[in-house]
């Protein structure tokens, strides 16, 4: 907020005795601050302010409405107890194990597939200008659209299975979306379909940025294509991996809508992610304290993954 106060002071011309050029130059100096101030203030309040508020609420006994009397870590105790209830699985246990499965597979497959597609497209093939948008296009869809489309496609009574049965392959069986043990993998499939094209585009841009001279030098030295990619290209793409990882990690953690649209929670709630848990408990079950506590745990998990990664990647810059 102090930035705003300062800038508004500089805006006011105080005395005419001052040369106008100086006012203008001071204004120009302050311009970045003026432009950034609103978004800075908004971020402070709406991101960090509400993070603190959520942490605060998680230590109260808030139910339908926020209550402000601190009552201790009961919400965390409940979550902690639920963490180990695997048979029958508690909703929280399901959510966090699903997050592990989904997060790992989604990020890993997207990176692998994106890199693979990018390398193939980078072979100076004809029609690249047409192929690239085809792969990239799913990213333009919202998770809801992706979810609904895949829901129909994977539904045994409507989509793939039904079609193959009509074509005569009656022994074909694919009911993952209706199966409590496999439904989370359908979320991975839909998520990967949506994001891998975008990751491909990121890698493609990275590949185009690699100096051709290095490649030629390596080829002259007798490197095979595999060695070329393994030893030179992929290590050079390291910054792209970082960006792609961060994009994918945040998509994975916030993918609430995909689960809802694709599975509406899955059989017996078996497709829940922590974000579904959080929304369900805060807004549907009126257990705001538990919802807040789960949000705090999500935040801590993200921090625990992203911060060391960012630290290790960004520290090595001045090589």
């Amino acid at each position, binding site marked *: 907020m102090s930035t705003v106060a300062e800038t508004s002071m500089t805006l006011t011309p105080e005395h005419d005795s001052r040369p106008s050029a100086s006012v203008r130059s001071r204004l120009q100096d302050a311009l970045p601050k003026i432009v950034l101030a609103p978004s800075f203030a908004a971020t402070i309040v709406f991101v960090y302010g509400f993070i603190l508020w959520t942490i605060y609420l998680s230590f109260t006994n808030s139910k*339908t409405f926020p209550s402000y009397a601190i009552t201790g870590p009961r919400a965390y105790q409940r979550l902690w107890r639920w963490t180990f209830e695997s048979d029958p699985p508690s909703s929280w246990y399901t959510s966090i194990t699903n997050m592990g499965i989904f997060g790992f597979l989604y990020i890993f497959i997207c990176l692998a597939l994106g890199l693979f597609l990018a390398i193939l497209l980078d072979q100076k093939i004809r029609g690249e200008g047409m192929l690239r948008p085809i792969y990239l296009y799913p990213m333009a869809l919202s998770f809801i659209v992706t979810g609904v489309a895949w829901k129909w496609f994977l539904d045994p009574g409507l989509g793939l299975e039904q079609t193959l049965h009509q074509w005569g392959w009656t022994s074909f069986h694919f*009911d993952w979306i209706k199966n409590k043990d496999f439904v989370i993998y359908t979320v991975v499939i839909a998520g990967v379909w949506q994001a891998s094209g975008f990751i491909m585009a990121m890698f493609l841009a990275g590949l185009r940025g690699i100096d051709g001279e290095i490649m030629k030098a390596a080829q002259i030295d007798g490197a095979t294509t595999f060695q070329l990619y393994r030893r030179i290209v992929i290590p050079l793409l390291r910054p792209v991996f970082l960006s792609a990882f961060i994009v994918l990690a945040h998509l994975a953690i916030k993918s609430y809508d995909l689960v809802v649209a694709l599975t*509406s929670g*899955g*059989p017996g709630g078996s497709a829940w992610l922590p974000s579904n848990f959080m929304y*369900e408990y805060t*807004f549907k079950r009126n257990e705001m304290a538990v919802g807040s506590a789960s949000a705090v745990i999500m935040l801590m998990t993200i921090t625990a993954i992203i911060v060391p990664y960012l630290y290790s990647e960004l520290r090595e810059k001045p090589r």
Partner: protein
Amino acid sequence: MLRKLLIGTALASGLAFAAHAEDVKEVQMLHWWTSGGEAAALNVLKEDLSKEGYAWKDVPVAGGGGDAAMTALKAMVAAGNYPTASQMLGYTVLDYAAAGVMGDLTETAVKEGWDKSVPVALQKFSVYDGKWVAAPVNVHSVNWLWINKAVMDKIGGTEPKTFDDFVALLDKAKAAGVIPLALGGQNWQEATMFDSVVLSTGGPEFYKKAFNDLDEESLKSDTMKKSFDNLAKLVTYVDPNFSGRDWNLATAMVIKGDALVQVMGDWAKGEFNAAKKAPGTDFLCYRFPGTDGSVIYNSDMFGMFNVPDDRKAAQVALATATLSKSFQSAFNVVKGSVPARTDVPDTDFDACGKKGMADLKAANEGGTLFGSLAQGYGAPPAVANAYKDVVSKFVHGQIKTSDEAVTELVKAIDDAK
């Protein structure tokens, strides 16, 4: 420059003030009745109010559906910007009343005699601390069977009177090659069906003790285990593709004759009506076998907020119009539910509606009108959802035996209380 700004502000606030003064003749309404039949039913109320000179203003809700509306309401109330009234369900009304944001309609209620005409069980939710805080719009009941008559005739079935009859009927359908039971495998649908199963298995007293009073002995009793076993039996009659299906798609299976029967609340009738099917000739409505004489209900209510004095007149007009006999009849004929007062003539209702009204009246007088736990009228949302979790996990196999289900049910309800 500054002067201009000041003038501008003054003008703007003057306008705002003028707009505020006009609010008096306006009803601000938060609801999620936006689809065809429901919107048409609500139009009746809009017209009634406009005759009295009150304009109707919908509070916009992004995304539709009850959850989005409740999230929007929470934000509005937190900001101190109350709508005149909001569509609300069961314990939500009481939560808001406990938070002290609801109005007081007792004066109107006394004048209109609501305490005599509105079923006693409903007043648990519309009256808080001796004050009327909500106007019930309708009563839905959930212990219904919806049967395709053509299929029923084909397999030579008759109305099942007991649970065993019902299983025998389902067997007949299975033998004839139709899907016996149309079920949508979403937790609320499974739990809604289980409400009826429990009432059928344990009887009215047991249902009340277990699902309204949350008595632990009843929840872990052998009768509850038997209920879970019965539920498991019913689930063997659904098609393999049931998981995640929406309720109206399950109803469509019955309408098309792909399936024999659906266990669902009376909102299913709206789907039959929309498909131009007539009760008695195209479809049959029976009480869930073994539950005749009892009604498991849920009800839509208009919660009335504590609005400023200049908006109170509009609120009273809205409440009065909502509980007027003409609106109760006109609305519920379209909606498929029955009126929230027992003294409305049933002339405009179809056979199922007439039966529903008679049942409601009898259940009200006999003390067998119970809140549906699955629909949030048996216990607060935290408990109701914990219950739905357990039932759904049982149906889908995360919970494997009825012993385990009963243990989990007690634990989950305890945890949520």
